[in-house]
């Protein structure tokens, strides 16, 4: 087994376990910290797929910015940890998990047909997934979507400020 495969397997296991812990925990802060672990292991998976730029963006934007925003809001609201782990009783929860297993099984059927069609990875050059090659593509073929993403972020920022703003007295 190559180092790449070992790294990817360990990262996959960590990703699945931390994802399960996210939905198992009662305390939102602990859930958020496990989500950070999950995002970190997905960044390692991106690295094994040759996406060094993506891995860096994943750590900086997701695990850095978005999760800090999450933790900040959790601390700001400071909700008391809920007594119940899940919204429904054990029967409904068990049924939902059973449905989830069925869902994974049906997805796996499609994935396995993919394996029959030849699931080998293409051989790629040294520059695959580097900041330079991704950037070149982003500023040529995907220039308009890129600009639109900038507008979307601006709209979201203004929207978030307006939504979270405290209503001034006398203003309706």
């Amino acid at each position, binding site marked *: 087994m190559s180092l790449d495969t070992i790294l*990817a397997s360990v990262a*996959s296991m960590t*990703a*699945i376990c931390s*994802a*399960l812990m996210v*939905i198992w925990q009662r305390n*939102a802060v602990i*859930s*958020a910290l496990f*989500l950070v672990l999950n*995002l970190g292991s*997905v960044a390692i*998976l*991106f690295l*094994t*797929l040759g*996406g060094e730029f*993506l891995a860096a*963006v*994943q750590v900086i934007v997701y695990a850095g910015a*978005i999760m800090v*925003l*999450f933790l900040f*809001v959790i601390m*700001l*609201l400071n*909700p008391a940890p*809920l007594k119940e782990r*899940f*919204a*429904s009783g054990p029967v409904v929860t068990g049924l*939902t998990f059973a449905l*989830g297993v069925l*869902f*994974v099984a049906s*997805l*796996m059927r499609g*994935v396995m047909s993919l*394996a029959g069609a030849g*699931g*080998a*990875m293409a*051989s790629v050059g040294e520059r*695959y997934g580097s900041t330079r*090659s*991704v950037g070149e*593509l*982003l500023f040529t073929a*995907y220039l308009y*979507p890129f600009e639109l*993403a900038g507008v979307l*972020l601006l*709209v*979201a920022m203004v*929207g*978030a400020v307006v*939504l*979270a703003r*405290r209503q001034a007295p006398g203003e309706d």
Partner: protein
Amino acid sequence: MPLVSYISLSAVLFTIGVMGVLLKRNALTIFMSIELMLNAVNVALAAFARHHGGLDGQIFVFFVMAVAAAEAAVGLAIFIAIFRLKKTTDVTEINLMRW
């Protein structure tokens, strides 16, 4: 790792995210489950990009991250507004749209 393992991992992570949205009652944890689902899709996109040897899939992941950032900012702002009104993040108690 072959393509099939990455796609299987993506399917499992996505399903865990769906379970979280369906089962949790804390609005913030539901939101984190949505992030889990977005991430699962990102893994699949990057794996297929590597499979085909092109970079377009990675560009898609980049855009998904941008949308996720926008969605997280607006969603958390909505939670702050709701919390100010109802003093709870329990989704079973938030029924403002029901009369």
